């Protein structure tokens, strides 16, 4: 069966001439229906840009995005509209993702009426109440007449999800959707999203810089690690987290502080060669991680762009030097 979303060598450049930035560089991956794929990386790695291209909000400069096996650039208008409805996005900032001058009811009813998902305003109201229940905003009647500024961050994110659900999406891009929410609420939001996956067969692309959250949310799914616009490693979450092969993934995992004093003590530190983060305007040659990589091989890593190749343990690694070398993360 064709994957629900497939990206083939998608590239996104911003700016022109000297000021040109390649935010996403020939990235390819496929997501099966019902799967959870996590896109992780630090700022500037291109994960948000990739997410927005998948959601159809940003056209790729090169490459192709396929929805249900069909390239979206070749879709007829009606088909394209279906794709745009089927793929929705949830943003990071609960304070910016809802229109401040609209009530929750208006926010939910507008897309319902516009796309004729219901008959008339009373049907829309009923459906809005149902959606609020689905995202655990109960009792739903209490929330209809509220303005966003009267809700907490977690509640606002739930309204964002309810809004995305109005068009019955099959795929949701969650761009750092829980990063700005209180720690104790994050889990319940993630559990709600997992429930959506199970009950409504929604596939997720979960974008985050928080590896621990990615591990939790996508444990039965896959993780893709990006660095400066390229995929450096991907694979089933347990494999990537417990047996990372790319030095950058290893660096990330060893750098993350743990909410557990003993794990913190046992974690083996990885020393990077340089603390400087390259600018997207002046990318290093060959493997872009080479100036910082402790396993740098001169003549190889600064010359050749490492190909993303599959390994037997699952997934792909873009590092010919280290892809077959497991390491111990904990002492």
């Amino acid at each position, binding site marked *: 069966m064709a994957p629900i979303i497939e990206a083939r060598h998608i590239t996104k450049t911003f700016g022109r001439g000297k000021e040109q930035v390649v935010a996403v560089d020939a990235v390819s991956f496929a997501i099966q229906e019902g799967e959870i794929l996590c896109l992780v990386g630090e700022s500037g790695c291109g994960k948000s840009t990739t997410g927005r291209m998948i959601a159809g909000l940003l056209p790729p400069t090169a490459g192709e995005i396929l929805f249900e096996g069909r390239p979206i650039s070749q879709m007829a208008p009606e088909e394209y509209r279906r794709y745009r409805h089927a793929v929705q996005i949830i943003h990071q900032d609960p304070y*910016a993702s809802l229109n*401040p001058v609209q009530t929750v009811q208006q926010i939910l009813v507008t897309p319902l009426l516009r796309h004729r998902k219901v008959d008339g305003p009373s049907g829309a109201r009923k459906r809005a109440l149902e959606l609020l229940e689905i995202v655990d905003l109960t009792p739903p009647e209490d929330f209809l007449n509220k303005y966003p500024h009267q809700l907490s961050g977690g509640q606002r994110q739930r309204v964002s999800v309810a809004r995305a659900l*109005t068009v019955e999406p099959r795929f949701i891009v969650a761009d750092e959707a829980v990063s700005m929410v209180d720690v104790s609420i994050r889990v319940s939001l993630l559990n709600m999203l997992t429930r959506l996956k199970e009950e409504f067969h929604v596939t997720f692309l979960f974008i985050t810089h928080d590896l621990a959250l990615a591990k939790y949310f996508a444990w039965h799914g896959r993780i893709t690690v990006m660095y400066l616009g390229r995929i450096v490693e991907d694979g089933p979450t347990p494999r990537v987290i417990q047996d990372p092969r790319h030095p950058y993934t290893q660096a990330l995992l060893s750098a993350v502080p743990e909410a557990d004093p003993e794990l913190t003590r046992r974690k083996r530190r990885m020393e990077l060669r340089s603390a400087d983060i390259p600018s997207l305007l002046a990318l290093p040659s060959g493997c872009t991680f080479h100036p910082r990589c402790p396993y740098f091989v001169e003549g190889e890593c600064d010359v050749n762009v490492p190909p993303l190749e599959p390994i037997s343990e699952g997934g792909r690694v873009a590092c010919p030097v280290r892809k077959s070398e497991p390491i111990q993360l904990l002492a």
Partner: protein
Amino acid sequence: MTMLRSLATTLRIITYNKVGFLGFLAVLAIVLLSFVGPYFVELDTKTKVDKIYQPPSQEFWLGTDHQGRDIFSQIVHGGREVIEVAVIAAALSTAIAVTFGTLSGFAGGWVDTAVMSITDIVLTIPQLPLLLVLAALIQLNNMMALGVLLGLLGWPALLRAVRSQALSLKERDFVEAARALDLGTWHIVFREIVPNMMTYIIVSFALAMTGAVYAQVGLVLFGLVPFSGSNWGVMLSLAWVRGAIFYKDSIWYIMMPVAAIVILQLSVVTMTRSLELVFNPRLRTGE
């Protein structure tokens, strides 16, 4: 039924800000005075030589003018034209600025370039000299026409401001969400972006009104606009010409229309504080 309910809610919200509510009441009073008043107060057109420049008294509430005519009745009748011209001018310039400013900022590309070029040209036209020239060429005695003219000249500054607000708003997450939900350009512009600029728009509307009032009065003072009747601008002009400011007794004649105009301007501007609350729910603290 719901219209009535939302009207009641709107009125309630206006009361949240004391100063704004006062402004609102003052505007209401002036509007009533100017539009309903004339039916109850007859305009005094009789010349009474023995009653020239009388100070306020029981008989003449605000005194008399250079011909012994009652100032109060003139004030009552004099507001309507002034307000009508101001509203037409402000409404027209705000409508043009908001529609094209938002579209231009949102659409970008050649639309934006075209609109901005036109705006820059109109912006550099000096208003008063243009009006002087037009007055010399054609008869500006139709009040509506004057309102339209002022409206057609007053939009550029507001358009630029609206456009830059639209440019920043269109990058916001909730606008992107509306695009993802395929809500349509019309909806995004007028239901997502514009409502978030309302504070700016109402303040600009108020200022456009005040500008239009001063423009009118200025034109009358210059003698370019031969308004008949007794609108406040005409009153001011006549009083000025008669040297009314130089005599203790005649000062009422010039001060009354000035006061009327100033009170109108002040109340319109202070009313915007309450209007802000109506359009921007976040400002309604303590709800």
